[in-house]
């Protein structure tokens, strides 16, 4: 008896310790990033390091005024918005088809969707760059968003697939018997029910594009996105600029992902709370 209680206790201890460790691993750097981004340049450069944020906006203001930074920010947002639209417009119909139709090769199709994630982008980068220069797509927000769409699309398809699967088929059928064609049933019954999930899926596509650095760095020169711009200036920029840049990059991603987390779980079939 006592033995099993003891081992139960130690398992519990291990469990808690692992969670604390994991959290520290993720949250520690984020915290330091936030502290430094919100401190004045002088504080950042001094030793020992400051662990309490000063809420001094000087670094962030400096960042905002850094030459080219604002353009890069606008580029990032533009590309991400394009990516968001394309992913949903292409992904939602595919997700619907997966959820509602039986067709030959359906399972294979689902595997292939995931396989696209296994393709290393660097491998594609050179031929893509050449192709983009030939077609004049290089260095445009539109061209880059196409690449980002290929990255975000698998997730968009899988999330919308799980959303459509979650809407009982009878609701759609009831709509058909009540005078709807397929489109009207979608518009008035399915869409309102899955709209929150679609929004989540769109935000996720936005974040994928926002965070992507490799394709952005290769395929843009004048119209750099924020990630590519920061990468380019990483060596030369002062420390406080790096912190501010990192902070600006990370915050939207974290906020958005936190907002849509339950849909990301749904994608993998994990029930959410």
């Amino acid at each position, binding site marked *: 008896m006592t033995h099993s209680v003891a081992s139960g206790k130690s398992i519990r201890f291990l469990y808690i310790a692992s969670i604390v460790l994991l959290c520290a691993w993720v949250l520690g750097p984020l915290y330091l990033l936030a502290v430094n981004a919100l401190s004045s340049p002088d504080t950042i450069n001094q030793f020992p390091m400051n662990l309490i944020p000063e809420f001094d906006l000087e670094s962030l203001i400096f960042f905002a005024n850094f030459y080219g930074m604002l353009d890069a920010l606008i580029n990032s947002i533009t590309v991400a918005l394009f990516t968001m639209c394309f992913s949903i417009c292409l992904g939602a119909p595919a997700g619907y088809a997966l959820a509602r139709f039986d067709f030959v090769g359906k399972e294979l199709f689902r595997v292939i969707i995931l396989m696209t994630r296994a393709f290393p982008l660097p491998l594609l980068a050179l031929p893509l760059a050449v192709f983009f220069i030939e077609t004049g797509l290089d260095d445009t927000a539109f061209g880059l968003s196409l690449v980002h769409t290929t990255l975000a699309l698998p997730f968009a398809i899988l999330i919308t697939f799980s959303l459509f699967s979650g809407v*009982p088929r*009878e*609701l759609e*059928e*009831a*709509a*058909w*018997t*009540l005078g709807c*064609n397929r489109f009207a049933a979608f518009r008035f019954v399915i869409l309102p029910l899955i709209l929150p999930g679609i929004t989540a899926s769109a935000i996720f596509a936005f974040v994928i594009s926002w965070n992507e650095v490799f394709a952005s760095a290769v395929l843009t020169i004048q119209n750099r996105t924020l990630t590519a711009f920061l990468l380019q200036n990483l060596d030369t920029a002062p420390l406080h600029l790096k912190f501010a840049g990192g902070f600006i990059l990370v915050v939207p991603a974290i906020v958005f992902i936190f907002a849509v987390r339950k849909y990301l779980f749904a994608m993998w079939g994990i029930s959410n709370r």
Partner: protein
Amino acid sequence: MAIIEIKNIAKTFGTYEALKDINLTVEDQEFMVLLGASGCGKTTLLRIIAGLESPTQGEVWIGDRRIDHLPARERGISMVFQNYAIFPHMTVAENIGFGLKMSKIPADELKRRVEKNAELMHIEHLLKRYSGELSGGQRQRVAVARALAMEPDVILMDEPLSNLDALLRLEMRAELKGVLQQSNTTAIYVTHDQVEAMSLADRVSVMNAGEIVQADKPMELYRNPATQFVASFIGSPPMNFLIASNTSNGFWVIENETLSGPSIAEQSILLAIRPEDVRLSDSGLPAVVRLVEPLGPHLLVTTDVGSNQFRAILDSDSQIQEGQKIFLKPNVERIRWFHPETYRAVF
């Protein structure tokens, strides 16, 4: 006029034959019940009529319109689903009015019809609620009101009461019958519950393994089952089956009791007797009492006749003990006779 004609409908899923050559005519304003065990193809047939499933073969007609190639929305049919299919993001009023809105009915007419049908189903106080705030029975009422609001030629219902508890089911059953009679629509109603079928239907179609075995008025089904399957399916407690052997032309003997029946040239015959169609007597079928269950007005007595189980419903003042030997006299008029190989009724 909404006469439904189903002609040679068949449906296969892969290699599985869910429906085999179904032929059925439902008269204008008739209440037709499809009755059969789970998995016999009732839902599939209903969905083919509704246009939610396409038949492998055959035709469906409503009046003089062939509809099996039309999309569901153009068939003039409303359907009540087994799990109600209430739209969760709409209020009760919006649910009932949804089909009318889709058909571009003017707003004041829409409002009138929503209110009329809500009243009919006694849910006028729930119009502003969402389906999440309704009980099962209330959802059921919304589903029926929504279907009726379309004022369809035909209303289809797939086990609409099966998710309700027993008391509610009884109440809704009576109400449904009244409401549908008033509405002058032709109705096809699917159920696996024979009591429900008998009490609701103008006619019942008994289905078995993808086929319609018999379509008839409830009492006709009860009195004159066309096959041994129908005889065993309809009635509770079920009919008793015994095998009798041929003595001379038209006389059949079983356990020394000779009964007059049809004259067919077979060695044996299958006969079916309802438990209530026997009476206690000094002669007749010798039976050993196994179990006596008082049902209030009657006694349900389970006996052995030869090696066959035989149930009898007897007067409650009969003095019968378990283990006792009794004689049961069948009412010869009420005996049904079935061919020993085809299991079809013979007369």
